[in-house]
Each structure stands twice: as structure tokens, then as C-alpha cells.
């Protein structure tokens, strides 16, 4: 299975966007996501991470610039066809509705009229929740909920996942679990993933990250090139020390600021 493809899955070209009349919130942003890429999206609060994901998912329309999905303008897709290619998961998922895990996972089939390529049970197996199929969403732990929604996107068959801070409110164990699961999906199914996150130490484990500030792209590439002390100071306005541990792992610390 090739992990690189010439045609970008998602491409943003000179995209501008603003919520109000004064000033661009997303300011001349261009980047592309290739097949099987797993990209971490970092930046301070209010820098435009969520907005970028929503633009990529077609929820928001850019005021200028173009957004392409598999080489075709995202506006040319019918809603249902687009849903077969992209799945976007918002940061806050309202789970007060008493759906069961299985009911939710089966919602992934809504864009389709044909029989599914995968059953809900198989999808639940992949995320390790088969035995929780009949539980209600509200009875699950935060990590299990996230995995339920990931299982739904598997049934949806989307080749691109746009995830808005899926690690928020998860403890370390579930964060690692979720990242491993996403890594597995990318390897086995060549799914591309763009994920907003805050933890720089986790981002250092990625192969590719994007750093955003005030709606502009500061850099995109390998975290060793992008998440440097200088770049992080520019993005977050804090002194961050990037060090290498004895075992060769890179990590950041910022205790000097306190």
C-alpha cells in the first residue's frame, strides 16, 4: 500500500476567511494533505485551528481562495458524496441523546444507499468496543466515546478524518490509546488524518505538524523542524526549551516561565 500519492486528498490554496467584516481570521493559508498523512495542527487558542478544520470539511466557505477535495472543488460535491470522503468530528460532541454505541456507529452509513462494506461489529472490533455495543453513549468513558465516533467514521468510509482536539479531556492512557488507533487506521486503510491538538510533547511524535498563528501558517513539516524553540516562542509567546533525552527522544519543557 502506498502511503504517498501525487494527488493531494485535501488542498487549500490561498484561502482567506473572516467571521466579521474587520480583518481576515484566516489569512492567505495554503497547504495540502496527501494520502495516508497524519498531520498534527498546533497553535494558540483562537489562532484558527477549528476554523481551518471546518473550512476543510466544507462547513465554512472561504471568502476567497479555493479548497479542493481529490482535485475537485469541494463545492462541486453533493453533501452526501462529500460525506463519503471526509469525516469531521467537532471538539464537543453532544452525547446527552440516549443513543447506543451501535446506533451511533451505524449512523456512519447515512450517506449510503447500498449495503455497507463493513459491519458495525467489525468497526467496533477495530476500536476495541465490541463488548460495549449495546451500552449507551453517556455510560462510556471519554476515551471510549471518542473511539465510538472513530468507529462511526470507519463505517462512513471516509478517507480523510478531520478531528478537532480529540485528545481534550482524555487522560494520558486514553490519549496514547487513541493515537495508536489512528496510527493503525492510517497504516491499514491509508486514511489521512488532520488533528488539532495542544500537547507539544505528543505533537513531537508525529511525522508532520502544522503551526498556526493568527490565521497564518508559520510552518509545516517534520516536528523537529517546526517545533523549535524559536518557532514556538513566536507562536505562543512563551519561552519553550526543546531538549533531547538520553534515549534520544525530543521533549519540550517550559518551567522557566513560572
Amino acid at each position: 500500500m502506498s502511503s504517498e500519492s501525487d494527488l493531494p486528498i485535501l488542498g487549500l490554496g490561498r484561502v482567506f476567511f473572516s467571521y466579521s467584516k474587520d480583518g481576515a481570521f484566516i489569512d492567505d493559508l495554503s497547504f495540502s494533505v496527501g494520502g495516508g498523512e497524519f498531520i498534527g495542527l498546533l497553535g494558540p487558542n483562537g489562532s484558527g485551528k477549528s476554523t481551518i478544520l471546518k473550512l476543510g470539511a466544507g462547513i465554512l466557505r472561504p471568502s476567497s481562495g479555493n479548497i479542493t477535495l481529490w482535485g475537485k472543488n469541494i463545492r462541486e460535491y453533493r453533501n452526501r458524496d462529500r460525506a463519503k470522503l471526509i469525516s469531521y468530528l467537532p471538539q464537543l460532541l453532544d452525547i446527552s441523546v440516549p443513543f447506543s454505541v451501535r446506533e451511533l456507529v451505524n449512523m456512519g452509513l447515512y450517506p449510503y444507499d447500498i449495503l455497507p462494506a463493513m459491519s458495525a461489529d467489525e468497526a467496533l472490533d477495530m476500536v476495541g468496543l465490541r463488548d460495549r455495543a449495546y451500552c449507551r453513549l453517556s455510560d462510556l468513558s471519554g476515551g471510549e466515546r471518542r473511539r465510538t465516533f472513530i468507529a462511526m467514521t470507519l463505517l462512513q468510509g471516509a478517507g480523510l478524518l478531520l478531528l478537532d482536539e480529540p485528545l481534550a479531556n482524555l487522560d494520558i492512557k486514553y490519549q496514547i490509546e487513541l493515537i495508536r488507533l489512528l496510527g493503525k487506521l492510517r497504516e491499514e486503510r491509508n486514511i489521512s488524518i488532520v488533528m488539532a491538538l495542544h500537547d507539544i510533547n505528543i505533537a513531537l511524535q508525529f511525522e508532520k505538524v502544522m503551526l498556526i498563528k493568527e490565521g497564518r501558517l508559520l510552518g509545516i513539516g517534520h516536528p523537529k523542524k517546526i517545533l523549535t524553540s524559536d518557532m514556538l516562542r513566536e507562536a505562543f509567546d512563551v519561552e519553550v526549551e526543546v531538549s533531547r533525552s538520553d534515549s534520544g527522544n525530543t521533549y519540550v519543557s517550559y518551567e522557566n516561565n513560572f
Partner: protein
Amino acid sequence: MKIKILVIVLITAAVMCLSLVLGPRTINPFAMDKTSREILFSIRAPRSIVALLMGVALGASGAVLQGMLRNPLADPYILGISSGASLSAALGIIGGASVFGSFTVPVFAFGGAVATGGLVGVMGWERGGLWPERLLLAGVGLSFLFSALLMLILSISTDEGLRRATLWIFGDLSMSEWSRVPYGLFFVMAGIALSVWRATALNALMLGDEFAHSLGFAPQRERLILFISVGLMTAASVSLGGMIGFIGLLVPHIMRFFIGSDGRLLIPASALAGGALLCMADLISRSVIAPTELPAGIVTAIIGAPYFLYLLRRKNVLGI
């Protein structure tokens, strides 16, 4: 799941049969004289069908509204549609209007309901779509205004008009006739068909607009379709026999205990259960102190509310 639906269908059918044969005069369907036949076909059959249609409309609209407004306290009356309908109907009754013959009150009520629905829709509309919070607040605001105007009219009206208007407001099925069935059937079925057709969109909307979008639905378009379906059903129901409480609010919750939240099952199940409950309530309301009748709306609340409270204590299924 199929068995549960079948059980609900059978219960509804059984209640319909009972409401045809029972009453102040018990009818043996296998040995009917002329009077019995007259009672059965001219009085009880249209009345039971009207009750069924009203209950179906209220149960289904409640299920749709609670999902689409993401609010477990939503019911078909919260949007102010019924207050508008009542105000308009009361104006018709007290003003002694008779332009449409025996249809005058239903036509006034339906017109009031549709006009109010449109008004709520206009006030809930912003940035190219309907927003749940705006709809709710606009509905509640209009509801208060129309209720106040209704009270004003009632307080300055004469005795006979007042009595008839009050009866109608509390839900009066005694005026049911065959002539009301066709239009009621048409609007209720149209509403049910629209909402069941968009039931998957409703499920997705319950989890948020962005989520619905990601599953391939245009949230604002879906909400508009669902709002129209609810408006049609509520207008039809109020114009058939006035305001009946409880069903639209609590029947969908009771059905969630049994068959879950999936709109494709919940809407038909709430519709049937609503119909069955109102039929039964009507049977009780015209039987217990015959020949006097109790308003059916009071009976639905007296049977339904304790049962609902019992379920609430027994199982924590509301997700709250």
C-alpha cells in the same frame, strides 16, 4: 425491535376497537340494531378516528421537535402554534363567525396555527436558517402574547361563547364529524411522511449541526423540512379538536424507554402510542360520568403523567 413495533400496533388497534364498542351504551358488533349502528358509524367511528389522528400528530410532532430543538422539554405547543390557533378559534367562536359553516372553528384554528408557525419561523430565522434557541424563544414569547390576548377576549365575552371557547381550548372531541376526517388525515399523513423521510437527518441533528453536516446533511434545510412537518401536524391536530396536553411532551419520552432514540422507529412509535393514548383517554372521558364528558386533555394527563413518573424512577433512560 420489530416485535416491539408490532406490540404497539396491536395495542393501538385494540384501543380503537374498544373505543368503538364501549361507551355509555355498549355495542355488540355481532348483533347491532339500528340505533347501535347509528351510534357506531355516525358518532363513535368519526370521533375515534379524529382522536387517533390528533394523538398521532401530537406524538410524532413531539418526537421530531425534541430532537430537532435538542431539548427534552420541547412539545408541539412550545412553539406557540397552539396559542395562535386557540386565539384565532376563540375569535371565531365568540365573534359568532359562520363563514365556513360547521368548518368555521377548524378553519380559524388551522389558519391561526399556520400563521403563527410562519411567524415563529420568521423570528427564528437568521443567517440563512432556523436556529433552535431562537425558535424556542420566539415560540415562548408569542405563546405568552397570544395566551394573554386569549384571556383578554375570554374575560370580556358572553357566557355561551365563553363556555364553548373554553371547552374547545381544553380539547373537545364531541364535535367530531366525518367531514373533518379527510383534511385531518391529509395533513397528519403529510407531516408523518415528511418527518419519517427525514428521520436519519433528525438523528444526526440531535448530535449537532456540524456532526450532521459531516454525515452529508444540510442542517438548515433539514431543520426547515422538519419544522414544516411539525407545523402541519400541530395545526391539523389543534384544528381537529383543540389543545390536548401531555401527549406531545411525554409520549416520545415513554417511547424512548421502549425502542430507543432512532427517529425512524421513534416517530412512528410515538405517533401510534399518542393515537392510542388519546383514543383511550377519550373513551374514559365520555364514559366515567356519562352523559357528561370530561375534557380528554385532562384524562391524558391523569393517566399518563403518573406512569411517566414511575418509568422515570424505575429506569434512568432520559440521559439526564
